[in-house]
């Protein structure tokens, strides 16, 4: 049981890291950035390129390069696919479709150039796990958990204590007012996407180490998106709790057996069922802002 919780938390922490990226963008721009999954995938590929394919760098520099690379990609993504729509105040639906286009384009670009093969990122720690009593704790899981936690704490610090963070939080309440007060929205959004992309790149590297690197790995980010929705889109604590909750739930469902048949094949049905049930009870997720209809 405890073992399951540990597994769940380690998956959940990576979900949380990805969900934060969705929520950050949603909190200011009010749309679901479906291209985030592709940015995460590309982050994993960048790490693979510098660690395995070309430079054979050690893990930490590779992680930093992947984060920087995905941050820049997310920034370019915003410039190319969203900025015109944003300035024209297009409905969020159009931004969402544009994001889908980016995601289709990038994912197939990977198929067309790198190919559909699965690649493994090298194991970071030689001795793979610790045994504490009956428990097995993978060092990578622990590292991923700790690193995600520290990063999210840092992000929180940035959002609470710095001028940029204050501007981002203000923009999530009212973008027009922030612009009137003299904040350069283009710069603000650029920083936002840099942060979201960097977090995504980090999550991508962790996923690549844990599973494999392949073009459609961005599909897993749909789970993270569900985590963000469960927590309430646009809320950072919500995204973290939602991600952790989903990871725990999946781990628990995977080991549950009913009538001798494992439920693990129905794991996704459970996640989505919980999501729909929760949305019916609380239509804006656990911590989402309740938006009143205005005339």
């Amino acid at each position, binding site marked *: 049981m405890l073992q399951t919780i540990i597994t769940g938390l380690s998956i959940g922490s990576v979900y949380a890291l990805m969900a934060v990226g969705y929520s950050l963008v*949603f909190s200011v721009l009010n*749309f*679901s950035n479906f291209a985030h999954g592709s940015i995460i995938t590309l982050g994993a590929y960048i790490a693979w390129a510098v660690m395995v394919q070309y430079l054979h760098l050690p893990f930490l520099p590779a992680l930093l390069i992947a984060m920087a690379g995905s941050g820049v990609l997310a920034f370019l993504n915003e410039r*190319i*696919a969203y900025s*015109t*729509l944003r300035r*024209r105040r*297009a409905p*969020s*639906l*159009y*931004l*969402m*479709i*544009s994001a*889908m*286009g*980016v*995601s*289709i*384009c*990038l*994912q*197939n*670009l990977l*198929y*067309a150039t790198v190919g559909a093969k699965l690649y493994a990122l090298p194991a970071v720690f030689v001795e793979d796990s610790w045994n504490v009593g009956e428990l097995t704790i993978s060092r990578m899981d622990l590292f991923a958990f700790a690193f995600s936690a520290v990063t999210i704490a840092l992000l929180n610090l940035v959002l609470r204590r710095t001028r940029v963070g204050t501007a981002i939080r203000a923009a999530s309440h009212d973008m027009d007012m922030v612009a009137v007060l003299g904040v350069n929205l283009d710069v603000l959004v650029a920083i936002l996407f840099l942060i979201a992309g960097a977090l995504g790149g980090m999550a991508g590297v962790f996923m690549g180490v844990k599973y494999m690197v392949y073009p459609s790995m961005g599909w897993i980010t*749909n789970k993270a*998106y*569900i985590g963000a*929705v469960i927590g309430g*889109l646009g809320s950072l604590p919500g995204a973290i709790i939602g991600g952790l909750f989903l990871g725990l739930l999946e781990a628990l469902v995977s080991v549950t057996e009913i009538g001798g048949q494992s439920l693990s*094949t*129905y794991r*996704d*049905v459970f*996640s*989505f*069922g919980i*999501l*729909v049930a929760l*949305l*019916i*009870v609380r*239509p*804006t*997720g656990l911590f989402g802002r309740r938006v009143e*209809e205005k*005339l």
Partner: protein
Amino acid sequence: MDYAAAIFTNAAIYIIATMGLAIFTGYTGLFSLGHAAFMAVGAYAAAICTHFLKLPLAVGLVVGIILAVLSSLIIGYPTLRARLRSDYFAIATLGFGEAVKVLLENFQLTQGSRGLPGIQKLSTPLLTGLFMILSVWLARNFLRSNYGRKIIAIGQDHVAAEMMGINLFRVQLRSLFFSAVLAGVAGGLFAHYLGFIQPSLFTGSQSSMLVIAVVTGGMGSITGPILAALLFATIPEALRLANMWRMVTYGAVLVAIMVLRPQGILGYREITFASLARFGRRLFGLPPSPGGESRKAVS
């Protein structure tokens, strides 16, 4: 079936499914990312009827429609009742679509992820073409009905529509039913066109293809999505040679359309005989016909 006929049949099926979504997403503004699930239900129901029970195709299609509508009730009733909107409704339907896929992969009757091979290929180009015309005609008439007027009002401003006394929940659910009917028919025809179905044919990306056709064609339009569906179903065939780069181009074109023309090809407009005549007159430099502007098509 020869190549051109096969492409035509495929395009017609795509248009039927898009038509349903054009009514639902295009007019109510609610984003369904799970429409492939309704297609899957229709496809499996029809295929099981003709393949295992040896029933005629018509019966299979009717059973498919009924089951598709029932499944739309399962997801539509609670979510529309709870007034989920935009992204929240989209993710709920996305989840529903994935759940249906997982269930199909694990049922005995549907033979899991191996799929159902050897379905009779009963969807001739003629039959599918007839269904396509029928569905476009139905969609047009639906829009001109009492319910159609109401969903147009909801699409324009749902708060104002509600204050006029329109029951949002009822009207939205009814247009979801309508789109599920067409998705079910499209699914049934699809199964009998391909002769083989498996759950992985009805994924979330299939659903987003349908939504994308509606949005790029133009919200609040019927002819726009038809045009977009036709283009999306045929252009990839023309680009067969550059197979790998096909989807890359598709994604890039999508972004370009959204950035350059976010209202879609024909947002809130239709191609009608009157508009074609106007276009023709402008093309040949003729003066507009007397009263041409005032006789603008209503739909």
